[in-house]
């Protein structure tokens, strides 16, 4: 019986994987209160980039692939901003154990994008994130059009390609 349930569940997930359509709208970025690195409350409804696309990533100081993802993004971030005007918000899900060490880590590594703190996982739950790394790309109006789980070396090249397609109004894959 258990094998049956498990096969049914896997079948559903596989259906889901193969039935993905392009330019699916996952909804607007939810309005959740999280914090900036200096402790001030920040509501995610205030995420905006003057009508240009936004990338939202989830990471943690203890998540190795997340650190690799952001190190790779940091190398090309200035170039991305010049080409497309995009803006990245890196949301740390570090809880009270490590949330206060996020700012010195981000500055020590010289990361140039915005970092937000989601200490109790409120934004993580509102966006249905399971395990970091998890990256979302939204258009200029706050509609999430693309998301991706995990990080493999070189994944960041795809992010800027998706942003360029959004700016041109093209269909995403």
């Amino acid at each position: 019986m258990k094998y049956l349930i498990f096969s049914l569940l896997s079948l559903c997930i596989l259906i889901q994987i193969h039935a993905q359509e392009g330019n699916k709208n996952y909804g607007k970025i939810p309005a959740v209160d999280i914090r900036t690195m200096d402790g001030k409350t920040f509501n995610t409804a205030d995420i905006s980039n003057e009508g240009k696309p936004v990338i939202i990533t989830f990471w943690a100081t203890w998540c190795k692939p997340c650190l690799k993802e952001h190190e790779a993004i940091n190398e090309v971030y200035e170039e991305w901003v010049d080409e497309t005007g995009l803006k990245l918000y890196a949301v740390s899900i570090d809880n009270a154990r490590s949330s206060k060490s996020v700012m010195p880590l981000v500055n020590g590594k010289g990361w140039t994008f915005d970092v937000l703190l989601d200490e109790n996982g409120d934004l993580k739950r509102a966006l249905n994130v399971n395990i970091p790394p998890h990256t979302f790309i939204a258009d200029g109006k706050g509609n999430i059009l693309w998301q991706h789980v995990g990080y493999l070396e070189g994944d960041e090249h795809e992010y800027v390609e998706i942003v360029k397609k959004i700016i041109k109004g093209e269909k995403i894959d």
Partner: protein
Amino acid sequence: MKKIFTSVLLFNILWALPPATFSQDILSGGKVTGNVHVDAQVYSADSILGISDSSLNFKKFGMNGFANVLYSNGDFNAGLRFEGYLNPMVGFDPRYEDVGIPYWFVNYKLGKLEMTAGHFYDQFGSGLVLRSWEEWTLGYDNNIYGFNAKFSPVKGIMIKGLAGVQRYFWEPYQTNNRGIVKGFDGDFFINDIFKGLSEAKTKIILGGSFVSRYEQPSVKIFTRDSAYITVDHGDTINWIKKTTYQYDLPYNVGCWAARMNLASGGFNFYAEYAEKGNDPNATNNWIYKNGQALYSTLSYSAKGLGVFLSTKWIDNMSFKSKMNESGNPAMLDINYLPAISKEHGYSLATMYPYGTKPNGEAGFKGEVVYTIPKKTKIGGEYGTTLSLNYSFANSIKKEQTLPGIPIDSTGTNGYRSNFLSIGDLPYYRDLNFLIERKFSSKVKTKLAYFNQTYNLHVIEENIFNDAVIVYTHIAVLDLTYKFTAKHSLKLEAQGLWTKEDDGDWTAVSLEYNVSPAWYLSFMDEWNYGNPDNDKQIHYYNISFGYTQKSNRIALRYGRQREGLLCVGGVCRYVPASTGLTITLTSTF
């Protein structure tokens, strides 16, 4: 069986609906999103690890899964999480075995007021007096089931109030099977409240909380023996007098906390102080002492440099919804006392991890991260990042309340302690150093060294009167080679050297990535230095994963040591097992 079948049917209906439904508006303006995650294991017998069909209780298949569905329509949100543990995987408490909906909520924002009814998660300050949270990979969920209100009367002030009961596996609340938790919290951003300060360079945030637990105490008694001697016609008679006492247990236990955060230029200072009232409970051996805690951090940041110092002092701060609750897994914790040590990503560096001792510990952590700028002689073409971290945890000083009453005697005030005292018994030390450097567009390396001191008696067995300490040296080389923009190979070589416990280990892993779709990896951890030749075990495994946008399927076959596993783009805590592990995850 019928229950399982209907749940699965419901689940599949939610799931198998054409994806188009989920991206269309429902009920004019509403949106449905969600996720599904399934971890399944098929266990093999493994005589080397001592796993047999009967040691597994004939549960050869374990599955932990959940699905979240979230409905949002403007200011209204509702959601639920369906969970099933059929059977719970090895390492997860068997009391989780069931299927159903342990989490649901409705939430509405009305101007400056936000109300939630149902199950919710929340945190006051840094969690010293209240934190309800969940971590799937740990099997941890202490959500509060009740009401939660948040009110922001003016910009810069946020007041929260909540009341409810916490989750305990699948057990519904009944009078007195656990306590009722109530709390309120105020958060004040001074620069927004006083308009004159809005442009000030220094930003100040103040906050305070109060949390209370009501629980009707059960009758609880203990006896104390005292010896005395009488002499009768020259004969010495030894007597033992047994006195029976009944604990006078409190119905209400309260905690309060005050916090402040100061940010100015590159400096950031945070401090939170908490106190707990009389709370005799199963964790502190039923003593009446108050609890105290201080958590404070100071950091300085500039571009390319980060310095971080933090201190944590805890005295008798275990605060649960139920006085009688103790043991593993930790359930019904109302507050959160994080470990002072740094969470590491490399598997051998997490072999001996530290967990907070709520009855008393004094800890410190310091960290420096510095990047030598790129295009300099020492920094190289791409820059070099250096990180140094040191943390320690010790006991706190405890003295007898009265001569003749040993420390921690049940039914007494326990002991006296001085605020911020550091005791003599070391619990944990961790010094680590990391260098990261990119040599070319194809080669990136990280080199790390760890020196850890782990008091095994204290951390694993809660024995505090002597020290059995494991000293380890750990080194890691992490190398990534990019063949092309999308094809890369990662090599990780680790070594752990110690004269105690299980002896030396070595670990090697090779991972081939094809961005963004798949990875293949091989890993082996070998306990070559185990003093017992039969226990020099290889924990080998091979994994494969395929990702398509926000969907992933991963398979792993082999032997898994308990600990932290990071492969193919994702990090998770994993319990020990031998066999096949399948993970499916999808966000829609």
